[in-house]
């Protein structure tokens, strides 16, 4: 056990933690994207998917807590490393260095922090369904009848209405762009940190990192872009919009506390459930 602790206290051990948590988050991003791409199908597809997830609270909560832990380790380790790295050079150079390193590698902290801010917003936006931050209205009022006859959240409408707001779409695109930057370096260096790299694999890993980060960028950015350009869902959203005006839930709409109550948030969150990335 002692050797484990001293391992993860060392600079190399911390890089292992960054890499392992990074890989898990990368896998989550792939799963999350596959779920989200259902937005390009008919509205029932994603609504049913969301309903299915919410019928399994244990699974969803397990995933959420797991992700929270992973993100927590990723961020706190990054913070420790950053502090140590800064202490390692107390006096800065007069001429900033201009060579060698890929530019992505120099912006890991900045891209990481913006992504963190984005995650918070994304959770509030589609998981907690906080009204007032989405520029549209109270998403909790959006309901639909699922093919089975049950009532459920109209996640499809929520997403479409959400991304029709220009600044929301723009913020998502910016965050996704920075995620691309973050992954462009991170995906390659996690192999390095874990020791899986040599002169044969180095170029292959570089290609993989470039390919995978680009694929994720295209996949994720396609959603807000397509919606904002009114390529999908415009007519469905138009129909759903009237629900925002009438309030079947009555006074609940103003109770933020209720909105944040875990169970409530759980039941209402559809696409956003694994929003942490």
């Amino acid at each position, binding site marked *: 056990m002692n050797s484990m602790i*001293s391992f993860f206290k060392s600079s*190399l051990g911390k*890089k*292992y933690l960054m890499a392992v948590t990074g890989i898990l988050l990368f896998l989550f991003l792939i799963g999350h994207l596959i779920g989200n791409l259902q937005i390009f199908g008919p509205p029932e597809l994603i609504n049913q998917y969301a309903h299915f997830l919410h019928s399994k609270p244990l699974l969803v909560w397990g995933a959420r807590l797991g992700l929270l832990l992973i993100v927590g380790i990723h961020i706190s380790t990054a913070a420790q490393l950053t502090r140590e790295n800064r*202490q390692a050079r107390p006096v800065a150079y007069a001429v900033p260095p201009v060579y060698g390193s*890929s530019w992505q590698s120099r912006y890991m902290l900045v891209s990481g922090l913006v992504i963190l801010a984005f995650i918070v917003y994304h959770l509030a936006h589609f998981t907690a369904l906080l009204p007032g931050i989405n520029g549209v209205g109270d998403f909790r009022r959006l309901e639909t009848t699922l093919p089975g006859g049950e009532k459920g959240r109209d996640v499809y409408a929520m997403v479409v209405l959400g991304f029709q707001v220009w600044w929301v779409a723009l913020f998502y695109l910016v965050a996704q762009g920075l995620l691309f930057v973050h992954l462009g370096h991170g995906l390659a260096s996690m192999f390095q940190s874990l020791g899986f790299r040599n002169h044969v694999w180095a170029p292959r890993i570089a290609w993989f990192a470039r390919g995978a980060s680009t694929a994720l960028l295209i996949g994720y950015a396609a959603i807000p872009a397509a919606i904002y350009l009114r390529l999908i869902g415009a007519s469905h959203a138009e129909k759903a919009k009237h629900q925002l005006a009438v309030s079947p839930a009555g006074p609940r709409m103003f109770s933020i506390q209720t909105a944040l109550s875990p169970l409530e948030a759980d039941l209402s969150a559809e696409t956003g459930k694994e929003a942490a990335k």
Partner: protein
Amino acid sequence: MKVTLKVWRQKNRHTPGHFASYQTPQLNPNMSFLEMLDVVNEDLASRGEEPIAFDHDCREGICGTCSLVINGKPHGPHRGVATCQTYLRSFKDGDEIIVEPFRARAFPLVKDLVVDRQAFDRIQHAGGFITVRTGSPPDANAIPVPKESADLAMDAAQCIGCGACVAACKNASAMLFVAAKVSHLGLLPQGQPERYRRVQAMVKQMDAEGFGACTVTGSCEAVCPKEITLDFIARMNRDYGVALLRGAPKKIAGGGA
């Protein structure tokens, strides 16, 4: 040609430093960068000013003594050479050249452009060796070493311990240096018995010296005068991970007579 030098001057580590500007005497483009400093120093000394302190020795790129960050780049503008192998023809007449010492907490400043790199030695003391007493080895050809391993070990062994990797890294990390040392011995059959003990001990000392961690930016390999690559860092990371999985060696109970 003539250039303007903007040089870091600092009497010792307890007094603050500053940049000072010097207009050089007439120079020859075939001079090495250090010969240019010699000329400037002779000029300063003849005018009663104190010469600029800078480290140097072999002046042929092999001893690792010379340092200097020239216009933001350790060992100057060219790849694969040390400062002593940098020539003035790489600069233009009238250029302003900014010269700074290697900056890292683990390399305390001695004077002007001279820093103390004994942290590297202490890392080596921790485990940069194969335990073999003088006189005890078998015949040199008793253990065949695959040519590929020997060549790769030689790639790593070329490290001259100059510290440019630390100077270049935005985290002042010594990973490239330590990785080169760990890999050199870890690649050879002779180095196997102590392979995992070595990597743990050297990494521990590296951290204790106050170097930063690796962010895989690749600045180190870009300035390494011997062009040692990041691949060796991966190799060290791998060995370090394996060392964890292997766990601490079993304690041997009791002692013999």
